[in-house]
């Protein structure tokens, strides 16, 4: 479940659009390359290759379709204005997509694929992939992709936060289905409680590690994420099959 911040709060978050715009010169090429999808960047980290890991690509395709399906419906329901609807000075450097701002689609897709990849690597049992640095690098890249959208002027940091939340949850959902686990922990993102005006990391900016740690019960509680208890999963034999095939590519 996701709820959105208030209009007044979105207006306050405009300050981030102004500050992050300074980095446009630095990130322009990345932003342009990431406009239509982020898989190319994420596949630079693990050894992904269509000839070598075809099932992983199939699985990632499924993950991205899931992410897109979910995020678009959230965007439709939450109907949040884009930054450039609040001020004429945002002037995004790329075309603002026609769907609503909150949550961020790029963030959702990036974190879903990052999470799925991480779990694939981790559960493969191959020694190097058990190291925590794989998770870190994948998540940092997903975070950078999300922040690039703020620099470009098409998302607020809170959009990326919600996208990160949704992406991790969807990735976890997909993983647990694929692993044949019976349930998954559900959470709620309370947009109105997303912070503002305090020292970092409570200044309203996007910090992936805070959200990730909270969702994995590694970090302190935050006011904008609440438990919804454990939800059951309907088994999906076809996903289990796909997951096993993909995982075996990493052995």
């Amino acid at each position, binding site marked *: 479940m996701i709820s959105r911040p208030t209009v007044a709060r979105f207006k306050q978050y405009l*300050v981030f659009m102004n*500050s992050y715009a*300074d980095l446009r*010169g630095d990130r322009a090429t990345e932003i342009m390359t990431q406009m239509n999808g982020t898989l190319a960047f994420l596949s630079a980290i693990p050894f992904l290759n269509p000839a070598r890991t075809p099932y992983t690509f199939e699985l990632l395709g499924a993950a991205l379709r899931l992410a897109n399906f979910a995020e678009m419906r959230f965007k439709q329901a939450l109907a949040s204005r884009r930054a450039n609807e609040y001020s004429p000075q945002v002037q995004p450097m790329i075309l603002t997509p026609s769907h609503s701002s909150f949550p961020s689609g790029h963030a959702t897709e990036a974190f879903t694929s990052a999470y799925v990849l991480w779990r694939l690597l981790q559960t493969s049992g191959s020694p190097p992939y058990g190291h*925590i*640095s794989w998770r870190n690098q994948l998540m940092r890249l997903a975070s950078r992709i999300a922040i690039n959208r703020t620099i470009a002027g098409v998302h607020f940091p809170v959009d990326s936060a919600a996208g990160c939340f949704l992406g991790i949850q969807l990735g976890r959902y997909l993983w647990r289905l694929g692993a044949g686990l019976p349930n998954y922990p559900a959470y709620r993102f309370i947009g109105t409680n997303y912070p503002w005006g305090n*020292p970092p990391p409570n*200044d309203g*900016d996007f910090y992936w*590690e805070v959200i990730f740690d909270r969702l994995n019960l590694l970090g302190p509680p935050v006011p904008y994420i609440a438990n919804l208890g454990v939800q059951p999963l309907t088994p999906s034999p076809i996903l289990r099959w796909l997951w096993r095939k993909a995982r075996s590519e990493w052995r």
Partner: protein
Amino acid sequence: MAKRKQQEKRAGAWDRINPYVNWALGPGRSDYFIPGRQESGKERMPLLLQLKADTAKDFLDGVFIKRPVFRKRWQDSFQVLCSNTKPRDGKPAVWVGTMATQDIVERIAGPAPRRSVDSVSLGRPLDTQALGTLSKRVVRRKASIALATPPYPRPVVMGVIDDGIGFANERFRKIVGGVIESRVENWWLQDGPNPPPAVPPFTLPPPQAVPFGCELYKSQIDWTLQNSMVDGVIDEGLVYRKVRLIDFARPLAAADVNHQSAAWCASHGTHVMDLACGFDPSPPVHNRPIMCVQLPTRVTADENPGELYYYIAHGITHIVERAQDLAQSWGLASLPVVINVSYGLLADPHDGTGFLEAFIDHKIQECRTRGIDLRVVLPSGNSYLSRIHAQVSFTSAAPRTLQWHVQPDDRTPSFLEIWLPPDPIAIASRVTLRITSPAGASWTIPELPFSTVYFGASPYYGQVASSPWLPSSRTRFIIMLQPTGRPDSGVLVPELAPAGTWKIEFRNTGGLTSAARHIIHAWVRRDDQVYGFPVRGRQSYLTDSLYRAFDHAGRDEEFDNSSLVKRENTINSLATGTEAIVMGGYLGKEGVVAKYSAAGSRTGMPAPPPFPNPPVATTSRWPDAVAVSEDSRVHTGVLAAGSYSNSRVAMGGTSVAAPQIARRVADNLAMGNPGDRQTVRSWAVPLPQFERSGAGWIATVPIVRLKRFE
């Protein structure tokens, strides 16, 4: 030619001392005190004052102030940065800094305090959030008792004063017993919040003691590094957010500088600091501690009016004092300090008496009497081909005309400084200027002390002020123009100056010959923007019909001819003192001086060797030597650290030559050697054009062992 009626107003008292202050309080006020950045009515102006040592105490005590409450406030407003009682030139000086309120500013120009003042420079104001309260004068630390002298190689503190210093970069860390520590002993964010936020690391001991901005000590930096780890990797973006170097949540006025240098992949300060003192974290380097000062972003962005002297002077003093604190804590009598300041300016007298060059000389001398080895390394500047300098001399009775091209859509003010030679016998007016605007209006100003002529009708779009320069008995004319393009909203410019060709005609009205000692120098103040910063100013430049920018083959012409516009004497105006080590740049592969590497004087200089300080008061010294600033003609820059760990970027300019030599100077000092200008010159192999290459080129070991060319 149409002639406007001259309007002469009684020049404000500040015109006797520094016409820029008048400009900042008058026509340039809305650009200097940007609305919303400081409390209206309580604005504070940073000033760096050079006082005559014999009357300095009276000045600081405010003996001429009758009212006790005001006198107390006066006393609390000034901080002594340097007290040089044994100067080389025999003129002891005391340097003080102040963030002065308006009434203090007006009082300084009063007849009694003015007598103690040699020069005053204006700094760019800080936001209210970075301003400290008026603090008492710093109590002079007692000389410490002689403590242990360490064996060689002894520790040397490397100081870096710059912008965009990514001090959490791996190159400035060490791994001690498996624990990541910082090598940065002290970091001062000069435009940080004051008082600092009530959260760690600022709340951790030791407490802060800086007049503006906020600082962190090593223990606090170490805490921040340890507490910004994610999966065992330090998230440097998070570190910089916690220490407020990066702050995307900070609200900004429309006209302010929106730039966070450390958030870019390449930042000037990180690159320079890597060249000066970057080491891999393992094996740990213990005896090259680092102290860095992050200059206010606005000062780097946009310097007119109001330059960086005040902040750099504070930075140098701060580093020296913190280094001596560190020495005491290590049980040592003192620690040598090498400070690299990779900044350059264009205007000012270039004769060693300018604001910061004189401060650096005095500070190094003061440190010498205190038993501290201080070395300052500066770049020679990148303005060799920028057409910002002209030299006018009278070969006949005919007047000479110089053209000053002021660019359109220049959103910052433009300034041209014309410096007359020293005047041993006071002739009333040696030169009369006639300034003609692109629209055809003209004004005349003779060389009277402190007079001002305004351009146009009120509100004036420009003015020319004639003002004495006491430290070397010269007179300068300063032509000041409002922006030619409307700045962003929030900065109200009542009247724009016309863009185009301004003509300045020099008429010899008494006493000047064609001798080298009678050359009149003109410099344009710096108005361009540093890499990464948003475009606001556009550099104006000088020209005349004889200037050749390109040779017959289309290459940049690197030699002067009989044009008034000269490439010599374009050297960094901070770098013409006697003590600082000044480095130019050369191309590593081709072995020639980089085409932008600026020059000292050529005219009127004896042929080298021996290597002189300029014998004539109006000539500028040469750089000491050149170091690699470009790997080759096509491989621009040299490689060193980008902002974030393990990134590499190429950056060029004389800014990158200086820190390479700062590194070698520190190594030299560590072995007990002098590490001074003479030492640096002894490393050099001669190159042509001594006024640019000094003693020649110096080979340095590249930071990054990557062969960019065969």
